[in-house]
């Protein structure tokens, strides 16, 4: 139990919940994976617990400044064996505590050795326990491409964490790492994914390579990069490496003070949340990163969400006529989400859209009303004239609620 405590505790700073994007039906074994994420519990800090997220070991031969497991820390160390970890996963899964396993690790002996151990856990689960549930594994930077390939055939998702959003800073904080050691496996994985897709078009039985794709994590606030730099990096990862998700993790100072890192009283949670919102805009609202921010406006506003900020910077695009405008245009109205935008477009032929409908759909009218034309607002409010006024009004009305972490 002590072991679990140490190794779960060490894994928790990877602040993401993900167990989606792959459908693996149970044929002759146990378990399946569902394409929409199932949360089994929630932590006291409101994160979804879906996977048993754990380190194989918290031993590490490296010494990254931002990491609690770095070799220069004097902390209790522990390691699982593949048998223990596979058994624990199965027993949790059978009780419906979890959707699957998120396996990460410090670097034990060498990257190759570590990757082999992780693969062994996954192999046991898949072949001995006939486990069809979800497995997310870290690809260890610097591991042999063959081992990474094996990992990809066993796991639903692989991830290589970039952690620090610029190479220069990474070199400063993690002297044993560089962007090549991160991007080599990442590019390899995206190539393998593409190849496996192609092959499966020809032979339906060709093996699947990480059907749920790959993801990465960026630490926010440990270094000086602007939000613009971070979003540009993320957008490149989505477009070029075809990543499924980029996770942003507000820096939590876990080590006693290191002069290379800032002293923070509190992790930058609001900033992290704004980045997630901006990320959503890129993934679901058809925004490009350089529409959200640019060289002249390199930081997301903390006080208002990025969509509202965009609308206030571009008053000439509003008001949007809900009875006529395209889906894309409606998506860009602050306070209207993907679901409401769809309902509006699908239902407006039945009649004019009015406040009562919008309210029922859950549209945040207090924001949306400044940017729309609808039954009650036949000419709309002209934000061209009043962007500053609207900003002040909205800032006042959301005061205090601004730190709550909801999306739009």
């Amino acid at each position: 139990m002590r072991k679990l405590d140490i190794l779960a505790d060490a894994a928790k700073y990877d602040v993401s919940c993900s167990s989606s994007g792959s459908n693996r039906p149970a044929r002759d074994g146990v378990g399946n994976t569902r394409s929409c994420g199932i949360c089994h519990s929630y932590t006291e800090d409101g994160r979804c617990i879906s996977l048993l997220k754990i380190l194989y070991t918290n031993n590490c031969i490296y010494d990254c400044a931002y990491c609690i497991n770095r070799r220069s820390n004097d902390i209790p160390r522990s390691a699982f064996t593949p048998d223990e970890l596979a058994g624990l996963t199965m027993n949790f899964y059978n009780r419906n505590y979890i959707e699957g396993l998120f396996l990460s690790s410090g670097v034990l002996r060498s990257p190759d050795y570590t990757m082999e151990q992780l693969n062994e856990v996954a192999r046991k689960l898949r072949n001995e326990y006939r486990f069809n549930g979800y497995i997310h594994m870290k690809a260890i930077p610097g591991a042999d491409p063959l081992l990474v390939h094996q990992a990809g055939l066993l796991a639903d998702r692989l991830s290589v964490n970039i952690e620090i959003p610029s190479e220069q800073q990474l070199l400063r904080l993690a002297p044993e790492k560089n962007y090549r050691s991160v991007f080599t496996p990442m590019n390899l994985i995206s190539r393998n994914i593409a190849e496996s897709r192609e092959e499966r078009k020809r032979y339906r039985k060709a093996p699947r390579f990480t059907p749920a794709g790959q993801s990465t994590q960026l630490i926010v606030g440990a270094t000086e990069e602007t939000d613009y730099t971070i979003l540009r990096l993320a957008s490149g990862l989505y477009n070029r490496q075809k990543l499924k998700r980029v996770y942003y993790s507000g820096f939590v100072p876990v080590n006693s003070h290191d002069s290379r890192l800032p002293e923070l009283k509190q992790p930058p949670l609001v900033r992290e949340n704004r980045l997630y919102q901006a990320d959503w805009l890129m993934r679901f609202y058809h925004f490009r990163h350089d529409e959200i921010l640019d060289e002249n406006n390199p930081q997301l506003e903390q006080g208002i969400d990025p969509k509202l900020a965009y609308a206030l910077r571009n008053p000439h695009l509003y008001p949007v006529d809900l009875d006529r405008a395209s889906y894309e245009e409606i998506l860009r109205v602050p306070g209207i989400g993907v679901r409401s935008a769809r309902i509006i477009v699908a239902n407006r032929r039945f009649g004019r859209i009015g406040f009562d409908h919008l309210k029922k759909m859950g549209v945040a009218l207090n924001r949306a009303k400044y940017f729309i034309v609808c039954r009650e607002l036949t000419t709309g409010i002209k934000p061209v004239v009043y962007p500053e006024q609207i900003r002040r009004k909205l800032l006042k009305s959301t005061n205090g609620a601004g730190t709550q972490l909801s999306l739009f």
Partner: protein
Amino acid sequence: MKVSGPYSIYTYDGSIDGFFSVVFHAFQSRIPPADILSLVSNNQIPIGDIIDVTTCPRQAARVRRGIASKSDKKNLRLVQVAHLAETRQTDMLLYRYLVRLFEKPGQSYYRNMLDPLVYDLVQAARRVKKEVHRFHGFVRFQQTRDNMYVAAIDPDNNIVRLLAPHFTSRFPHRKWLIYDVRRKYGIFHDTSGLMEVKLEGHAFELDSGYIGKNARAVREDLYRELWQTYYDSVNIKERKNSRQMRAFMPKRYWKYLPEKSKK
């Protein structure tokens, strides 16, 4: 049975067949309901003219066929799922919806979300589906000595049947039971298929959902404690946000989640 006045309060046993029997009765006798009450989810005795309808599968089947023939199948699905919401007004909403469907057939009303009646029904169905989705995560199995996996639940809506497909596909070769302790029935699965069951006596402790110590597998307690340890250790103090946690996992669900109901 007493029939008087132009309107009456209908009571029934809470099942979907019972509800359809009410609809059948109301249409045939031309006595529209002032209210429709399930005797299972309402404890108070209604005041007024009461017609207590006995559930009749044949009448229910006729209503079902009626719905299916008046429009497309999605309507039937919507009605059946919304009925499981068991909220006070849903049955009347459903009734009004069906009246409209039978009077002006052929239209796919459910598509028109601008109509408040349709919208409320769709919302009721969404609430049910949302809870089903939540319980895909919140069901907690315990392993029994004879290698069965059993779970107690107490959901807001009557969803235990809707949980069956997910767990059947997840654990296809296993004996498992998910039991609704408030509605006092459950779904049992073994290799030959699914069965609805009613348990005699108290198989589950009502406050914790645990099965009796003697019924548990040898390592059941160990794994439960490991899970509790895991839950406690993944917490990040610096990020504490209980409000959000409770929004996702409301307190009323905690009693059967071992990680939230430690003794």
